[in-house]
C-alpha cells in the first residue's frame, strides 16, 4: 500500500501512523463546564461518523518527513483519493 506524500513521493504504509478522523475543531465555548461545551467535547473526542466510503483522516509520516497529512480515502476499497498537507487544509478553512 503506497501513500503519495507531498514531500517524499510514494511511500510504504509502514512509514505512517494514522490518527483517525479529520474534522473541524469544535467551536470554542468559554465556559468549559457548561453542558454545551461538554457535549461538544464528548462529541469531538469520542464520537465518529465512521462512514463506509470516503473518509478524511489525519496521517503522520513518522518514519519519513514527519509531516502531518490530511488523507481522503475510501474505507470500502482502501483507494487513496487525495493526500495533502494539513497546513494546506487549514489555510483553506
Amino acid at each position, binding site marked *: 500500500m503506497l501513500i503519495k506524500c507531498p514531500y517524499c513521493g510514494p511511500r510504504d504504509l509502514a512509514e505512517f501512523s494514522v490518527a*483517525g478522523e479529520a474534522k473541524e475543531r469544535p467551536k470554542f465555548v468559554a465556559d468549559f463546564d457548561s453542558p454545551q461545551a461538554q457535549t461538544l467535547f464528548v*462529541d469531538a473526542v469520542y464520537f465518529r461518523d*465512521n462512514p463506509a466510503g470516503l473518509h478524511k483522516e489525519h496521517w503522520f509520516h513518522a518514519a519519513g518527513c514527519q509531516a502531518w497529512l490530511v488523507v481522503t480515502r475510501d*474505507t*470500502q476499497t*482502501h483507494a487513496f483519493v487525495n493526500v495533502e498537507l494539513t497546513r494546506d487544509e487549514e489555510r483553506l478553512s
Partner: protein
Amino acid sequence: MKFSGLQLLKNALNGQSGWAPHWRKASPKDSYDVVIIGGGGHGLATAYYLAKEFGIRDVAVIEKGWIGSGNAGRNTTILRSNYMLAGNIPFYELGMKLWEGLEQDLNYNAMVSQRGILNLCHTDAQRDAFVRRGTAMRLNGVDAELLDREAVVKMVPFLDFDNARFPIQGGLLQRRGGTARHDAVVWGYARAADARGVDIVENCEVTGIRQENGRIAGVETAKGFIRAKRVAISVAGNSSRVAAFAGLRLPMESHVLQAFVSESLKPLLDCVVTFGAGHFYISQSDKGSLVFGGDLDPFPSYAQRGSLAVFSDVAENAIAMMPLLGRLRILRNWGGIMDMSMDGSPIIDKTPIDGLYFNGGWCYGGFKATPAAGLCLAHLIAKEESHPAAAAYRLDRFATGRVIDEKGVGPSPNLH
C-alpha cells in the same frame, strides 16, 4: 431431535439418513414482539436466551447473509476471561461459566476445549503487570496462575526463550481459557432458538429502521417492512451503518483485523499462546492448522481485507516468538471488520429511541463474549434494565467519564 450417542449409532447404521435440518428456513411474519438485527452468534444467543430465560418467543433474527457467513466465521475462536477492570471481569467470567455449560445447555457439540491460554511476559515490568492482573482475576473468582520461565519451558519448549531482545521470563496462565468451534456455536444457538419458536430469517438485509412518535416501529428489510415492538441491533463491524438508520452516531470506528491459517500439522500446540513483546496470538485447531493473528491495520476499514504491512508484521512476530513457524506455509488469510470502541470495551444498552437496543463495540473480543452478550442483551430487552454483569457497558459512559479502558490508550481505536 435430541442429539445423543444412541442417535449417532442409529444413523451410523442407517447410512446417516435420519438427520434433519437444524433450523427452519423461516419467512418473516408481518410483526414480532422482538426483532434482532444480525444473525451472528450474539444475535442468535440473544434470541435463544429471550425464549429460554425470559419466555419471549415471538422473536425474529434478521440476517443479511446466511448463518455463519459473517464475523461469527472470521474470528480466531479464543475463549478467555483474563480481564482486569471491575466493569469487565464479572461479565467475561459469566461468559466463561456459560461456555462451560454450553454444550449440555444447547445439546450441541460446539467443541469447547478448555486448553488454557498463556500470556507471555518478557520484562520485570510486564511480570508486575501480570501479577496485578492475575490478582484482580483471582479476587473475582477467576482462575489465574503466574508461571516462571521453567514452567513455560515445560508447556511450550519450542518458543524462543533466549531471544536477546525479549527473553521469555514467564507467563500468566488461565487454564479455563481455550477455544471453541465458531461455526458450531452459531449453528447450536440457531438450532436451539428455532426449537423454541424463534424465526431465523436469512438472506434478508435490513435497509432501514422506522420510528413512529419517537418510538421504534419496526425495520425495513429486503423482504418488506417488519413491524416490531422492540428492536435490537447486534451487527458487529457494521454497527455505525445500522445505527445511522435510526439517526444515531456511535463512539466507534470500524477496523480490519487479519487472521491466518497454516497448513495442517501433527499435534504441536495444546494451548493458546500470546506474545508479550509484540502483538501475536496462536492456537492449533483440531484439524491441525495453526490459527493466528496480530495487530489491526492502522486505518478505519470496511473492506474485509488487510494490507501487506500488517501481514509481514504478524509474520515477524510469529518467527520472533516461535522460530519453528519459519518453515510453515500459510494456507489462508482473511480480514474481518471490528467495531473498535473508544475505550476498547463493548456497549450493551438502550438507545435514546424507545424500544431500540444496542449491542456492539466488541473490538477483538466478540467471539468469547457470545453467550454472555446474548444473555445480557436478552435481559436488557426483557426487563428494561441492564444485567448486573453488564451494568458498566453503558452508551453514555463517554460523556459521564466512566470509560472502561483495559489497555489505557484513550480514544485511539486502532490501538485497543
